[in-house]
């Protein structure tokens, strides 16, 4: 891991591309998770009545139940999106970058 290989990677356009793409995806997905979760928390704090509205006039199941389940499922789906993208595009780019150094 001599400095030369670092400089080589640094100047490799593929590295810039990898870091840009992966950084953007990680940022957007983190933001999505934060918005979903803190959105839910703020609903709990400010809009208890809304979460407690029954879905149908005759039923007892409230809107809060599917919203809560949505937050749980969204956490799994967001990780799934990242892993799918990383397993294909990012890993491919990364191995090309490492191959270029050798």
């Amino acid at each position, binding site marked *: 891991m001599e400095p030369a290989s*670092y400089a080589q990677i640094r100047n490799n356009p593929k590295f810039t591309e990898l870091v840009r793409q992966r950084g953007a995806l990680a940022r957007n997905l983190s933001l999505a*998770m934060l918005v979903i979760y803190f959105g839910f928390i703020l609903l*709990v704090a400010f809009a208890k009545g809304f979460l407690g509205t029954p879905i149908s006039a005759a039923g007892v199941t409230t809107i809060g139940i599917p919203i809560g389940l949505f937050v749980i499922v969204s956490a799994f789906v967001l990780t799934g999106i*990242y*892993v799918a993208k990383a397993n294909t595009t990012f890993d491919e780019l990364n191995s090309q970058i490492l191959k270029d150094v050798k």
Partner: protein
Amino acid sequence: MRAPLRNAGGLGASAALLAVGGSAWAAGALDGPATTQATNWSAIGMFLAFVVFTLAITKWAASKTKSAADFYAAGGGITGFQNGLAIAGDYMSAASFLGISGLVFVSGFDGLIYSVGWLVGWPIVLFLIAERLRNLGKFTFADVASYRLQQTPIRLLSAIGTLTVVAFYLIAQMVGAGKLIQLLFGLPYLWALIIVGALMIAYVTFGGMLATTWVQIIKACMLLAGASFMAFMVLWHFSFSPESMFRAATEINPKGLAIMSPGSLVTDPISAISLGLALMFGTAGLPHILMRFFTVSDAKAARKSVFYATGFIGYFYILTFIIGFGAITFVMTNPAFYNTVVGADGAITFDKVKDLIGGTNMAAIHLSEAVGGNLFLGFISAVAFATILAVVAGLTLAGASAVSHDLYASVFAKGRANDVDEIRVSKIATVCLGILAIYLGYVFEQQNVAFMVGLAFAIAASCNFPVLLMSMFWKGLTTKGALIGGLLGLISAVTLVVLGPTVWEKTLGNPAGSAPFHYDNPALFSMTIAFVGIWLFSVLDRSQTARNESAAYEAQYIRSETGLGAAGASAH
């Protein structure tokens, strides 16, 4: 099952003799009055089967554990799927299984707020931390935090952060364990602590990370299977219509329709956000969880393990929600699960919440008996015991690693320690931590320790997480900034918890409303203090060392992004 049952004879019989008379406690994960139950033979039998099986695995793991990489990180040979299960096994504690289903049992919807909070940290761990951690580190997260900073101060800080988090988490688990086992198996409190402590020491000292990982995997499978069965039986009873289940629950629960909407758990936005931050970012700073990422071969496996773990944990929290509602319909309607009062007219009366045998955290346990009979009750009791063992083993290994890998090898021996010495120190630390855990569990028996898990998360979010995150992402971070900012986060988190209502009023007994700090969770404030401290003292540091540290960021950055040169634990 027959052989273990016979073997259980001596232990069980003497336990029953010692456990005469009931007494009452109020504490921790298991608050509310609890009475020692009659010795539960099927539970003891199944638990002994688990112990025999896991000790056999430990023996096998011991034969494969030779180098430090084996001991700390199972030689990096765990697959992504296995690690995902092990992470789930490490994370799904008895407190979250029994505590959340108990909360749903009492308040319905409110339980969902907690389970959501405990889950959403995982995507963040994946997006920001998991792969970089694997690329940069070897055995502990301090490897990463100190990558380009001065070893001694940063290792010291990380070790303090690790050991405080482990200590509070461990006390909460041990006290909960003692009470739970006393209740489920009819064993005296101290015996229960000694059994947990001794087994945990055996797993970790002989089998290291490999044995710990398999204990966690087996426990995760048992817990997921048991919880799935219970949720299935509940839904089956209602012809798989959640609406009928919710309707029945609102007709039975004393709170009625209120259990279908948020109640008193979250009162003001500041508390809500502070709690949310602690749960979300605390997960990303728990040393025993971070350590699990070094057990896999590369960044790709680290990434997959979070994906599987998120799936298992999310599924598990959905199950606990169904189990909580199931307990309302099956348990609240059956006086057999209650300490009942027989009136003068012969009528049996009980309070549907306060009189539940063992307190409301026993709701899931009672439900297991209601849906699966005594044998299944035994299975779920054994699962609860196994759950505690898996969590405390992971915690102890993380604590021992901080002592041997960070304090001994890096700070004390200045990196000149060999593998053999380091493993020996680690084993000694494990034994000491095990004994300390038994002692602390004993000392805190009568204390309310419920706040300790929350405190552990707050410290992890305010000390470990900011230092780790900034070391990975901010070029300008210096040793001085990390050290001072991290310490400020740690001290402010502890101080604010002590000055907050839970400890100041409920634990220390000061009058209600007198707490100097008004919020139960300090994370919003202590995390801000930590990040501002790290930034400020890094910027103010104009020394040559600081400039060198900033110059070293480039190489670290390239390794963290590409994995170049990251052999780490898998190399041997």
